[in-house]
């Protein structure tokens, strides 16, 4: 059936934006695989029954009918600019905690950020306020209240809110809250059960603690990434790409260190909650930093320095510990292939050898490549990947994947975000999902990673929040402020 032809005039890229919305081009563009097709996948490995059990018990479609793990936990989240406290509170909020996000009356500056300053990529709420997508995507299931902590009254209200909180996640410069008389020292006197988490880049104490510039600008990620050797270790070496043209130390494309600090904050806070409820009844003070939390997960890098003064160098898409374990260029992008143990390593070779017989001669028959650990030597990596790329360069990602899958090898194409959103497995779960938000309309978002559970799955209820939307409800419920008083406070600039 022919589709209706629309009259469209395009003079600039701006005119195309309205043509791309979810109403015009709903996600997914092509339907996900059907349950029957997937059942056939389970059957191929004689796991029909188990596959059905998983689908019946873990599917996200049933999540809304199940209880929430952290129901009854109240989290106060208070910070600006950075992702750490938002991700930590978001993880807890997805699992059912009640999250109240406290912002200054002018709002978290992250609300105003948008890629390349393009306001047309910001979304308007029902009040007509525009908000950036980073903020909308990362503030999850949170109520929004505003408080001016620079005023006496604001601090008083904040203290009263903290009396009701189980967990408080704060992300302000070191000592800022303490100076105002609302840090851990003071709040723990009023609410000894409070679990108080501070999140930052380098720390709130110590010789390299977080700084603000003399004009008050904060340190943001990648200051965390740079302080733990992550950036030094990431990227292509000068031997592979010229310096200044890709052959440089490279930061993560996202504020990755903040995310890592955020999740460790959530872990520490929940462990402290367990200890409080199980043993002591006491809260405590927790400090998580982006630099250290990321350093924790840099494998053995610093340990290696302690072993023989090795300073880890950049190795691009390769890995100095594993062979094969890399993505290499193919005809239409990059193809990732992994398989280290003999069983998998020779299977990769068998697949490539079919079309490139010389691979077998040069790789499989090389005595220096026979032993698994020996294959990690630099010359072994260079040789293996050179030969693998000889095969890859003539084929597309999808062809390579198809061929490697016949040998059951962990391999996959490097995907761009549009391809991610249409990747069959992503659509089927779904890992990117849509939400009809009350304020911002239909949003595509990355689904909660903890949403696939039998009894208490996590869930995303809403994303972002208009500034101060929940002032009236939260202040009434926990402090007892009525309409009139609230209006007065608003005039005084407190909320």
């Amino acid at each position, binding site marked *: 059936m022919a589709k209706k032809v629309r009259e469209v005039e395009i003079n600039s890229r701006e005119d195309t934006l309205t043509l*791309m919305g*979810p109403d015009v081009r709903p996600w997914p563009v092509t339907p996900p695989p059907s349950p029957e097709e997937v059942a056939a996948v389970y059957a191929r490995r004689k*796991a029909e029954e*188990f596959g059905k059990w998983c689908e019946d018990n873990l599917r996200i479609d049933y999540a809304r009918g199940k*209880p929430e793990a952290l129901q009854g936990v109240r989290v106060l989240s208070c910070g600006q600019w950075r992702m750490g406290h938002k991700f930590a509170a978001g993880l807890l909020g997805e699992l059912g905690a009640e999250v109240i996000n406290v912002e200054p009356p002018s709002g978290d500056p992250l609300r105003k*950020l948008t890629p*390349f300053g393009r306001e047309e990529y910001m979304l308007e709420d029902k009040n007509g306020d525009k908000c*950036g*997508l*980073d903020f*909308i*995507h990362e503030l999850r299931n949170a109520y929004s209240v505003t408080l001016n902590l620079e005023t006496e009254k604001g601090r008083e209200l904040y203290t009263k809110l903290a009396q009701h909180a189980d967990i408080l996640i704060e992300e302000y410069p070191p000592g800022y809250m303490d100076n105002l008389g609302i840090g851990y020292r003071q709040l723990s*006197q009023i609410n000894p059960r409070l679990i108080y988490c501070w999140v930052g880049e380098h*720390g*709130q104490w110590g*010789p390299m603690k977080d700084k603000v510039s003399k004009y008050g*600008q904060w340190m*943001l990620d990648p200051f965390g990434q*740079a302080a733990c*050797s992550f950036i*030094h270790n990431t*990227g292509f070496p000068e031997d592979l790409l*010229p310096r200044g043209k*890709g052959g*440089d130390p*490279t*930061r993560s*494309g996202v504020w990755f260190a903040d995310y*890592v600090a955020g*999740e*460790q904050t959530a872990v520490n806070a929940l462990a*402290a909650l367990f*200890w409080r409820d*199980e043993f002591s009844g006491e809260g405590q*003070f927790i*400090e*998580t930093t982006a630099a250290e939390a*990321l350093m924790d*997960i840099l*494998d053995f*890098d*610093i*340990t290696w320095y302690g*072993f023989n*003064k090795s*300073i*880890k160098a950049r190795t691009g898409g390769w890995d100095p*510990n594993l062979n094969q374990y890399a993505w290499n260029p193919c005809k239409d992008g*990059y193809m990732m292939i992994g398989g280290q143990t003999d069983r998998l390593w020779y299977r990769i070779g068998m697949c490539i050898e079919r079309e490139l017989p010389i691979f077998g001669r040069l790789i499989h028959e090389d005595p220096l490549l026979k032993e698994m650990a020996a294959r*990690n030597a630099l010359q072994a990596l260079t040789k293996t990947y050179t030969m693998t790329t000889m095969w890859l360069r003539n084929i597309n990602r999808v062809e390579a994947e198809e061929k490697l899958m016949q040998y059951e090898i962990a391999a996959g194409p*490097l995907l761009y975000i549009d*391809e*991610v959103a249409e990747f069959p*497995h992503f659509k089927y779960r779904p*890992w990117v999902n849509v939400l009809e938000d009350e304020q911002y309309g239909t*949003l595509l*978002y990355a689904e909660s990673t903890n949403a*696939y*559970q039998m009894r*208490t799955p996590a869930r995303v209820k809403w994303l972002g929040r208009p500034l101060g939307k929940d002032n009236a409800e939260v202040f009434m419920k926990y402090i007892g402020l009525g309409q009139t008083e609230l209006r007065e406070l608003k005039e005084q600039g407190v909320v």
Partner: protein
Amino acid sequence: MKDQRVTRIEDLPGPKSQGELEEMKMPYEEYCRKVFAPGQEKTKPESLKGIRWLSTTMYIFTPHSVANLAELGAECIKVEMPRMGDPMRHTSPFNECYLYPLHDSRPMTGTGLGFTNANSNEYYISMDYHVPEMKEAFYRLVKLSDGLTECYRPGTFDRWKQSYRYLQELNPRFIYVWGGGFGYGPKVFGGSYDILGQAHAGLASVTGFHEDFGGHCTKHSNWCIDWYSGTQITVAILAALYWRRKTGLGTMIEFSQVQAATRCLGYGVPLYGRFGIVRQRWGNWDTQLCVHGIILCGKSDYPDEPNPQLKYEARYAVVSAFNDPDFKELCAIIGRNDLWDQYKTLQDRVRPQAQIAIYKALEDWAADKTRSQVVKTLTDAGLLAMPVMNDKEVYECEHFRQRGTIRWLDDPVFGDLLIQSGYSCGLMSKTPRRVNWLWRPVGADNVKIYHEMLGYPMSKIEEWYEKNLI
């Protein structure tokens, strides 16, 4: 019985003793130092005391979910295949670095450094689950534990009658975690690694330099996504424990590592959904802030060092001046007030063409300077800048030393080891994390667990060992 008419000082808010009063008056930094007290971890209680967790895991991703628990004080038991052990034991950077002693699985070498940090504080037993003879021992372990993390391909544990379908019958309080690449769905049997997660999930497509600048999609160094995803499992486990305190019921958690890398894409996903725009790479700069990026300086800080990582690479600095007054000052320092005249708002500065011009001007200014000179000039002026630190500088950094996040450990098996993990996941004032030992050889705790805990006679354990079952 308390007399309600008497006001006791301990019931009032505020400091209760001279010591507490002094604590309230202390300078803030000193106070933090005192409550976190690095080095005093062992004098404080453990948060997860009494929790016992099984780890039938390999590599980094799923082991890390358990290592987090072990650092927090849970008793964790790592189960490995007899003789073989975790494949991660065979990995070492460029095949250079092994820790000894020898063990029976790898007679020629020790354990590779790749195994570091993923399984701290755990007890190590070996068991071949395939064999029906070992089933009873496994079930005994399950009955005595709070939960398990596994990473086998879906259906494998079910075939061996030890999936959650079976285990919940034995122990209804049991919390069962499967961690892997994909989970139920069309690619259910697909294997996964850290690097596959980075590639598949879109993270690699936004990291690195754009091809117009000569770059490629870039891997996050190390196995970052494995570790990062593992921590999110720990969040789920702790939430499940919280819920179990109320209900007495366990659960099954299915966690996919490929998805976790998509979760941190920020605006990338909604931007595509709403506007059809696919985020691309933007190298060492920031898509939403300017100036907020990494620049190349002309001279090395260590011109005479033989190590190329010092001689050639110690040349990069983070420079951050995105607010108006900061940017204005920066322009004045580099002698390019014209840039300030041209780009007076963040919105102007952050446009791609503006960023290209501004960072070029910065690198031109830094072309005859060392990284330290650049950082010193800017920080002396009150702006934010720092060097991109390498492993040597991180090791020598006084900051991490004072905070106890990098420290030497006298490991019971391996002796002096430098550790960067565990203590760095966050400081806790009352129930801090701790590292007791890094790892032990395969099956080192077989007697402790099979004999002392599960009550099997020593002769049985020897028989199992002879038959290659443990």
